[in-house]
């Protein structure tokens, strides 16, 4: 009898230890989010920073980006939007590498602390950037947006959050002076966005990329020029349409994003 029981336990132990496929992930799915923060104006930046501080948690919960499932990796990339042409992107990932583990262990693996620490650090850096004259001399939003999206994996689920007033102010377009109509926007693409970027962008879409863009439009804070926020919104809607981005949402703060 005892030998039978011992044998049974031995068999079960071997069986469980041998069943790695029971808990190991055969492949990891990717979920990416990109936070583009407009640093072209210090007052604007303060508004944006406050919005992130107050509502980032609820945004992550409502958008379900904060729910990391087993065998899933989440990456958050952060980049500033300003007058600089170059893209300075920072990223941090968390992932859950096993399945069928306890919920507690799963939550431990999905602890967002590294991402939040990175975000806090970047927000502090961007505050300095927002006070830099070179950064605040203008804004190249569309070009930087495409550059940033091209950094992502076309196969992953990408959500881009642009926190900006939406006012392009560069050598090619100045929305303070004139907001182009819907018909004029497609013609502006080639001048607004680098040709190589556009070419890469077309290829990016062909590879199956379908990013979701959430534009958190803040009112312009410049005292010298008043811009109709609705016109700005229409401009961006037309621009996104010209860029073949169909999954676009506009909001006024992170808490008002549709779930």
């Amino acid at each position, binding site marked *: *009898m*005892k030998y039978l*029981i*011992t044998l*049974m*336990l031995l068999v*079960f132990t071997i069986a*469980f230890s041998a069943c790695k496929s*029971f*808990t190991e992930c055969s492949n990891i799915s990717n979920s990416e989010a990109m936070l583009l923060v407009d640093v072209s104006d210090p007052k604007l930046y303060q508004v944006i920073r406050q919005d*992130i*501080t*107050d509502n*980032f*948690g*609820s*945004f*992550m*919960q409502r958008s379900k980006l*904060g*729910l990391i499932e087993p065998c899933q990796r989440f990456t958050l990339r952060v980049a500033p939007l300003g007058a600089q042409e170059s893209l300075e992107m920072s990223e941090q990932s968390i992932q859950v590498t096993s399945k*069928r*583990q*306890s*919920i*507690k*262990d799963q*939550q*431990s693996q999905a*602890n*967002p*602390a590294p991402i*939040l*620490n990175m*975000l*806090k650090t970047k927000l502090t850096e961007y505050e300095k950037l927002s006070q830099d004259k070179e950064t605040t001399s203008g804004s190249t939003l569309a070009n930087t947006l495409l550059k940033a999206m091209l950094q992502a994996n076309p196969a992953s689920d990408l959500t881009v959050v642009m926190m900006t007033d939406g006012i392009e102010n560069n050598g090619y377009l100045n929305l303070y002076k004139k907001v182009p109509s819907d018909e004029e926007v497609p013609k502006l693409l080639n001048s607004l966005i680098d040709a190589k970027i556009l070419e890469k962008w077309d290829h990016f879409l062909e590879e199956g990329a379908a990013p979701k863009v959430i534009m958190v439009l803040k009112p312009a804070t410049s005292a010298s020029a008043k811009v109709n926020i609705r016109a700005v919104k229409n401009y961006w809607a037309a621009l996104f349409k010209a860029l073949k981005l169909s999954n676009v949402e506009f909001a006024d703060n992170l808490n008002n994003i549709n779930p």
Partner: protein
Amino acid sequence: MMENIKLYNAARQDIYLNDIPGRNEEGYKPNRTQRAYLNKQKYGAITTHSLKIQQLDENISDLRKETIAYQVPADIAIAQGNQHKDGYNPEIEEVKDNIKLLERDLKKYDDDMLNRGIVPEEQVKESEPVKAAEKRQKQKVFNWKAIGAFLLIWGAGETFMTYVQYNGLRYDKSVESIVARSIAFAVVLFLIHLVAHWNKLRRRIIYMIFLGVSFFMVFCMLFLPLILNQLYPEASTQAVTDQWSLNKTNVVAAPSHGSANPFWVDLYRKNDLIPGILSFLFFIIMTSFTKRGNKPPEETPAPQPEQPVNPIIDEVGKRRNYYLTKIRQEKDKLARLEDAQKLSSHSSTETLHQIFRVLQEKQKKEQALTEERDQLVAARQILMNEVQSELAQYETEFREAINNDPVKSALINAGWPTEDDIINFYKIRTK
């Protein structure tokens, strides 16, 4: 028409030559013309057919005689079969009578015993060594019914407990741990059942200690997690919003390695199979250091049971056993005799089958000969009819010829042949 003219001329010739057909004491005498027709080559077959018909008749007759001759051996074979069969009857009857006598004696004995107040046992004790060994062998087999009942109860209980506690269990435990926990629980329950069964058969202190410890382990496995959660609660989970909020000064950090709980609390929480393992170890130690004499004496029957509880009952049982054994032996003998009786008629049956086959062949042969004979008779009759027709035609022409000669017609009295005359001419037999 031409034939008629020829006949007419022939008749006139015969009348002129005074060659008149007629009958005398020797029979019918055909004239030359009639003879010419009767002797036609094609009518020669009448004689040939008749000879052949005669031969066939003889063959058929011989076959029939042979057929009749087989009746004797057939009768003999049947008689022999019956004789053999009947030969067993007296012995069979004798055995049947013996069986009746024995059954009557057994019934009388049972009635006597009942009158004395002794209820005879229905089942006779087998005293053969082989049967006792078989019984011992059977006892070694697992009681699958009990095992099945245990598995059913454990399955139902464990399913219910897991379903009720799943959400709580799932937070702290992976799927592997939950399954291992269930198995450990089942093992402990099984060991409790087993040792309790052993204890019923033979009480031992060590068994009772084991049962006490195992029940305590089961209690721990069921209730200790709940008690510990009350005494040493774990940190509650945070909502996703709170986890991702930047407002908190203390961002959710990785779990700290240190814990304010006593070591055994964390140890148990991480290794809740410990009670099951301890129970199992206890069981192994117990069975290793205790003797295997845990079966009761009555489970090992002696080859010759020499310890009757009641000598009278035992004696009655022996007596009944004697009667039942004798009855069984007589019934076996009866079955053997009846089988032999069936087999004994086998040889005579074979002979009859052979005779039957031979008779069948002869019957087929006779049928063939008869058909051939009938065909020949029909062919011969056709020829007979033809020759009669021609002779009748000659008669008509002859009469006409003689009617045209009034002188001759008064003097001539011709005779004409019948079928019998024709038969006699060809010297054949038709009957």
